Structure formats: C-alpha cells, structure tokens
C-alpha cells in the first residue's frame, strides 16, 4: 500500500511496506549498499512518522517477504499467537513503543515478557526503528527470558559468557590452554563453544570429547558446543559423541538459509537427536543459533515482496523467528564480524548490537551478543567497551570472550575475559548461579564474590593447570 508523509515542506512517498521499513532505519552502510536506505535525513524521519502511525496488526496482513515464497514468513504467521497479541492488538507502532516504555518504568516485566508469541519480527523491528539507545536498553532490561541446560541463562543481575577457545589448527593442547585461561577468569558459564578450523565430523567429535572431558573432570555446570554445520553435528550424534547443543547460523529468509545449507526440518531433526540424549540438569534447551545483520545481503538473499531489497535489521529480526521455533538455550548476533560494508563504524555497530538484543529479547530469545570488529571497520576497543557496558545495562544474557580479545582462528577481535570481569564489576552483575557456585567451590572467588587474581602457585590454579598436562 502506497503511503505519503510531509516533513520540512517536502512530501515523501513509500510505495510498499518494504520501502517504509527500510527508509525508517537509522543509517547503516549495508542498507546503502543494498540500495534501500533513506536518501536524506528528512526522508528517514518521514518514514518513521508514517511507521509510528501504522497499526501493529498491519504486519499480520501485509508482508515484507512473501508468504507463498518464503518459509520464514509462513513460520511467523502460521505460529502467531492471537491471545498473546491481544493486549497490544489495537495499538499503532508508536503507541506500542510508548506502552513498552510505560511498562518498563512501572517494572512490569510480566506484561512485556508475555507478549513474545504474539509479536512478529516485523513488529519489533519497526518498533526498534522508533527507539533511541536508552529506550532499547531500558526495555531490554525489563524483558525476561530464562533458559537452561546445565546452567541457567537470563536471570536478573546475571551476565554469562561464552568461552571461545578457538585455535587455527584445533590443536587439543592449544584449545585446552585457552579454556583454562577463560575458566580462571570466570568465563564459560553460557557455553564453552569452539569454532572448528575445518568442518569435519572426526574433528568435531574429537573437540566435543575434549571439552566434555574438561567439564566432567572438574564437574563444571556448563555446556559444550562445537560450532560445526548442523549436518556435521548429526554425524557426530550418529557416532555417539557427547553433544550438548545443536549449533547453526541462521538468517531471515528461506533463500539465505538455503545458502547456509539449512532447512527447518533439518534443525528439528538435530534438536530431537540431542534432546533424546537427556544431558541437561536444570533445563532442556538444546539449541544455539548465531545471526548477524548483513548475512542475507551477503548471500544475495535479501529481496522481499516485488523483488525489493529489505533492510538488514528487519531481516535480522526475522532470523530470530527461526531461532525461537527451536527453543534455544542461547542466541547471539555477531554484530561487527561481517565487515564495514554492512556496519561501517562504532556508531553503527553499537546501535545494531542494541537493536538486535532488544528485538531478540522481545521475541522471547535468550539473547546474547558477540561484541566484535574487524580491522577494516572504523571500530576499536573504545567502541566495544561502550557496547558491552550498554548491553550489560540492558540485561543481555551473555557475551562472547576470547583470550586477549584476539581470535587467532577467525582473525577478528571479540571481547577479552577481562572485559567480562570489568562489565560485571561496573554493573554489579554476576555469573550464572550454578557456575558461580562452582567458582566458589574451586576457590576462585574472593570474599566479595569477585573472581580472584591467582598467584601461579595457588592451589586452585594448580588444580586447573593440571588439565594442561596431556
């Protein structure tokens, strides 16, 4: 449907919902590259003005990506829960933003968190486009999503971390060294998750057994994951490997998921296989998904109704609809990984990280963020500090940490273990409760509950370092 609005004496026209969503999006390089960004600041505000007056229910009738040609759209609409939607069904997008902020100010977590099954990705994406940084932080903080397997993720006052011990050749001693360094810094409560250097079933099984042995040896209340393709994880399952979590990268269109070699049926099969192992102690969430703005565009799979380019933030929110269908333990956006042609600088990366966290949480996901950057983006450690502290304030479920912020396998920079300690200290956040109790048992916490700096000859250090002995 064609829509018009006047700003500053000019009238701007948006032929379809696809353009309206794209032009209303805060500036980012990926939308410029796709040719769907607002062509002026005034046009952006005109689109936001129209979006604010759009009834939320419009998104149930008018699609951004077509129902007949896209299984993500079908999943969203076919599973939409009208009862959960009822409290906000009569609101416009702008009124919905106001309502969320009112519930937030009143501390009404229950009202916000109960909406998830009634919300679609396009609804939350549209709402985020009207929000400023503080809005995204405030509402994110009041949206509660709690999941569990052997640790509990998403409780108030907690910030978990994925310990990412990647190694260029998957060398077992090298991987073990990075795991121990992370554990000594209190990281790893979300997952100990390795990106393998090659996607081979044998390698995946070997890494799964390695991490499982460390977890078993020290009785660590956490889970392992080798972030291989879902088909590789299925092979590992057939071989009887100790699989805690099914991992997969997912995106917001059927075509982009096809590019990842993934179908919804394949994900369901793998999830069922891991569930049958019954490896959880505090919950049974057994999937883990990664996403990131720009992934659909980079696969040339970003077109919506009428072949029009869809903005990358709306497509990102659609990826969350795929993830939530499989009741994940963890989901994170990899916010600065894909490069400056999608998110150019620190301002764009910070904004995208907060949008992704907000949209994921509102849709009911245990949302985390890989706060990261590449060397050709205009981003540095100051920007990652800013985003990390804002995410901590926003109640982010978990962040990712690697030794010294330097991933020597994927060649990008994420957070360091120290960055996680700093965020917890500054914001008064603690690790997942089961993991915190383990840290205490291992004598790794001081009297104030902080992760202690150990002398090399401290008993706790010696116990853990013993694992580095093959």
């Amino acid at each position, binding site marked *: 449907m064609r829509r018009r609005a006047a700003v500053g004496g000019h009238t701007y026209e948006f032929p379809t919902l696809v353009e309206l969503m794209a032009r209303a999006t805060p500036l980012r390089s990926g939308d410029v590259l796709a040719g769907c960004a607002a062509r002026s600041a005034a046009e952006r505000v005109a689109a936001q003005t129209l979006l604010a007056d759009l009834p939320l229910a419009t998104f149930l009738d008018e699609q951004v990506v077509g129902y007949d040609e896209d299984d993500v759209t079908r999943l969203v609409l076919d599973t939409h829960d009208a009862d959960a939607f009822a409290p906000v069904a009569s609101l416009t997008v702008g009124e919905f933003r106001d309502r969320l902020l009112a519930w937030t100010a009143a501390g009404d977590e229950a009202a916000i968190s109960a909406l998830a099954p009634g919300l679609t990705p396009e609804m939350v994406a549209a709402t985020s486009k009207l929000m400023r940084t503080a809005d995204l932080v405030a509402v994110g903080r009041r949206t509660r999503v709690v999941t569990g397997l052997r640790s509990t993720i998403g409780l108030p006052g907690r910030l978990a971390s994925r310990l990412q011990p990647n190694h260029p050749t998957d060398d077992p001693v090298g991987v073990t060294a990075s795991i121990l360094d992370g554990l000594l810094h209190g990281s790893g409560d979300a997952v100990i998750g390795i990106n393998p250097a090659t996607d081979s079933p044998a390698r995946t099984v070997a890494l799964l057994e390695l991490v499982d042995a460390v977890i078993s040896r020290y009785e660590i209340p956490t889970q392992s994951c080798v972030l291989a393709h879902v088909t590789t994880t299925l092979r590992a399952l057939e071989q009887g490997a100790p699989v805690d979590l099914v991992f997969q990268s997912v995106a917001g269109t059927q075509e982009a998921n096809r590019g990842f070699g993934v179908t919804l049926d394949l994900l369901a099969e793998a999830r069922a296989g891991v569930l049958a192992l019954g490896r959880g102690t505090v919950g049974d969430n057994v999937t883990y998904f990664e996403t990131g703005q720009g992934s659909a565009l980079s696969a040339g799979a970003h077109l919506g109704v009428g072949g029009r380019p869809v903005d990358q933030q709306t497509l990102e929110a659609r990826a969350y609809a795929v993830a939530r269908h499989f009741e994940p333990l963890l989901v994170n956006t990899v916010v600065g990984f894909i490069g400056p*042609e999608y998110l*150019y600088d620190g301002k764009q990366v910070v904004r995208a990280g907060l949008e992704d966290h907000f949209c994921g949480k509102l849709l009911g996901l245990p949302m985390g963020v890989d706060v990261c950057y590449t060397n*050709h983006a205009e981003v540095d450690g100051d920007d990652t500090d800013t985003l990390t502290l804002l995410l901590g304030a926003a109640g982010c479920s978990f962040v990712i940490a690697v030794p010294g912020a330097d991933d020597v396998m994927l060649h990008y920079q994420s957070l360091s273990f*120290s960055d996680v300690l700093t965020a917890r200290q500054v914001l008064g956040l603690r690790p997942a409760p089961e993991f915190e109790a383990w840290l205490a048992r291992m004598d790794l916490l001081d009297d104030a509950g902080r992760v202690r700096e150990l002398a090399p000859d401290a008993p706790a250090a*010696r116990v853990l370092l013993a694992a*580095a*002995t093959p």
Partner: protein
Amino acid sequence: MSLVGEDPWAVLRSATRARVALGRAGDALPTHRELEFRAAHAAARDAVHSPLDVDALRAALTGEVLTVASAAPDRATYLQRPDLGRQLAEGLALPRAGADLAVVLADGLSPRAVHEHGPGLLAALRERLGGWSLAPLVVATQARVALGDAVGEALGVRAVVVLIGERPGLSSADSLGVYLTWDPRPGRVDSERNCVSNVRPPHGLSYAQAADTVTALLTAARELGASGVALKDEGPALPSG
C-alpha cells in the same frame, strides 16, 4: 608438559598463539598487554589505510605498466561499497593486449602487502610463465578481486591473475593473496576462481611456493578451459578465498 618451573603460566602461553595468561590489573589488562594489543591493531589499521604508492611500486617493477582505478573514489567509499571496487572508473579504457595472460597488482585491503611482496612474487611468476604471452602489467587502486574481470575483458586475455593485499589480521598485516580467473569477464563468481592465500615470507608461503602453485593452476585451467571449483578437484588443495 610439566608444571615444574618458575612460571606455570608459561605452560599455558607455550601451548598456543592465543593471548592467554596475560595477567591482570584489577579486572582489566596490565598496561603493557594493553599496549601490545594496540600496537598490533595499529599495524593492521595502517595497512588498510596507507594508500598504495603507485610511483614507488612502478619503480620496483620492470616492463610496461598500466595504471587503473576502480569506481570507488576514496578509501571510505571503497570499504563500504565493494560493488564499486569491482568496476573500472568511468571513462577508463585499456588497449587490447593480444596476449594470453594479464597480471594485476591490486591494493585490496592491504596496500602494504603489495609493496612488500608484489614485486618479489611477480618475479617468481615470470620465471615460470615461459609458455604464456603476457599483457602489460596492470596496477589497480581501490580494487577488489573482481576488478580483474573487467581488466581481463578489456585487455582481451584468456586468463587473469590478481595479486591483492588481504584483509589484515592482528598478527599478519602484510599478507598477499593470488586469485586466478579463466576467461575473465564481469559477472564471474567466486566459485569460478582459484586462490592461493597467505603469501608472506618468511611467516607464510614463499614466493617460489606460491608461484609454483599458481603456474600449476594456470596450466590446468588452460587444459580444462575453466577455473574455480571445477579445477580444484584436480589441483592441489587450496584454501578458500
């Protein structure tokens, strides 16, 4: 591996190139570790942003050299618009070369890599390409790999080899990549190319190793009349590009 010794953290450090056991200043990193990291990041940043010195590069090369620019007018545009880096600047014309093969030296994401390793790798390649007639050498700025397709088509060659600065990592700011495309023309996709990555002596591939592989690939591509995944099965194992 043993824990007996002065510094048990050395056990961790010796096990991996990852930045483990850095120590702490409260919850943060100690100053000297922070500065080590900044120095590595600065080297990578400078490698991306220091422009290719075309005159200096030409002086280090022999034979006829043509210079081209992509449609990306500056570095900031280049980084945000990879599509422009794949097209020749408007109005730019190249002469038909009447040759088999064109070699393009492209700045890519690390002009420094081209300065440090371009002339050396090119010399090693020329020693091995006796059976090929070569078009004039092309130096390209603000260039992506696929700019070689436009260059190759304009020159009318059967194959193009692009030597290009790779995205700098924290510990490797000067890595050169080589991309081979048979029958180059705009619209070729990455699966139709072969890549030799990490040319960076003494830490990465030597010039001789890289030139041997590229020459073997070129010979195989000429026999097959194609490059890319079709060729990959019969050639040496290559990293993806």
